[in-house]
C-alpha cells in the first residue's frame, strides 16, 4: 500500500492527476478512449465478418487491420499505466479493476490466437462461410471486449471510487 501511495504521489502521478493543463489528465483520458475505439471497434468489425455480416468482404485481407488493433492496445497500455499511477491506491483496491484486467488479458490472448490460427490459413478463410469453430472464437471475442469496456466504465461507479474518472 505504501508503494502505491508513493507512486500516486510521485511527480508523474501528481502531474497526470493535477496539472492544470489540457495535456495532462484530459489528454491521457482521450488517448485511452481512442485506443479503445481502435482495438475493440476493429476487433468487433472482424468478429461480425466471421459471424456472417458483410459476407462479400474477404476475410484474409483483414489481417492487415491487426497492426491498427495492436496500436490501439499499446496506446491504451501506456495511457492506462499513467491513469493507474495517478490513482493507484483507489484503482488497485477496486475489484472491478481486476475484472477489467482479466477481460483484457483474455481478449488479447484470444485476438493473438485467432490471428495465428484463423488468419494463418487465408485459403481456408475464403472457402465459404467461417467454420463453427471460428464463429465460437468471434463470439468469445465480442463477449470479452464488451466485458472489458463495461468493467472499465463501471470502475467509476462500483467499489472504491476516488472521483477521478
Amino acid at each position, binding site marked *: 500500500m505504501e508503494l502505491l501511495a508513493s507512486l500516486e504521489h510521485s511527480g508523474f502521478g501528481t502531474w497526470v492527476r493535477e496539472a492544470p493543463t*489540457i495535456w495532462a489528465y*484530459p489528454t491521457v*483520458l*482521450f488517448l485511452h*478512449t*481512442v485506443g*479503445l*475505439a*481502435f482495438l*475493440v*471497434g*476493429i*476487433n*468487433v*468489425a472482424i468478429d*461480425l*465478418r466471421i459471424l456472417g*455480416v*458483410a*459476407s*462479400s*468482404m*474477404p476475410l*484474409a*485481407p*483483414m*489481417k*492487415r*487491420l491487426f497492426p*491498427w488493433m495492436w496500436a490501439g492496445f499499446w496506446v491504451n497500455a501506456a495511457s492506462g499505466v499513467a491513469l493507474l499511477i495517478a490513482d493507484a491506491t483507489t484503482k488497485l483496491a477496486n475489484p472491478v479493476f481486476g475484472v477489467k484486467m482479466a477481460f483484457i488479458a483474455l481478449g488479447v490472448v484470444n485476438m493473438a490466437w485467432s490471428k495465428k490460427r484463423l488468419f494463418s490459413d487465408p485459403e481456408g478463410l475464403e472457402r465459404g462461410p467461417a467454420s463453427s469453430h471460428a464463429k465460437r472464437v468471434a463470439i468469445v471475442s465480442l463477449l470479452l*471486449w*464488451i466485458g472489458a*469496456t*463495461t468493467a*472499465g*466504465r*463501471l470502475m*467509476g*461507479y462500483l467499489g472504491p471510487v476516488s472521483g477521478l*474518472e
Partner: protein
Amino acid sequence: MMGPTGLIPLGGVLQSAAAWTETTWLHYFATNYKWVWATMETLHFLGMGLLVGTVGVLDLRLIGVAKGLPIESTQKLVPWGIAGFVLNTLTGIVFLAGAPYQYLYNFAFQMKVLFMIAAGINVMLFYWGGAWPKAKRVGAGESAHWAAWLAGATSLFLWIGVMYWGRMLTFFRPPFVVPPK
C-alpha cells in the same frame, strides 16, 4: 443563473430549452435512479466502439489500409456503424435530458455536435457528391481516387474529434453546474 457561455450565443433559447428539459419524465428517469447513468455510459462506449470500428474499416480502406478488401464490400459494415450511431444518439439524449445545463452551455459539447454535423455532411458528400459510384468499383489491390481518400481521412479525423470533444466535456463543465453523481 449565469448567462450563456460557449461557442454559440443562443441565450434565451438555450435557457428555456434547458429549463423545459428539466420538467420531462426523461430528466426524472436519468437523475433519480443510480444505475441509469452508469448503464447509459456503458452503452455509449459500446456504441462508440461499434461505430468507429465498422465505419473505421471503410475509412481505413479508403486511405489505403488492407487494400485486399474491395471497397464496396467494406461498405456492408456501415449499417452496424449506423446502429452504433443510433444507440449513441439515444443514450446521448438521456445524458442531455439528465443534465441539460452541463451540456448546452458547454463549449466541448457544442464542438462535439459541430463535429458530428460535419461528419454527416462528409458522408452525404461522399455518397451523393459523385465519389461513391467511382469508389465502389475499386477492387482488391487498387487504390481509391483522391476524393474517396479525402472522404475517408476526413471521416477518421472527425470521429476521433467527436471522441476528443466527448472526453473534454467534463473539463469544460460550466462553472455554475454542479457535477452529477
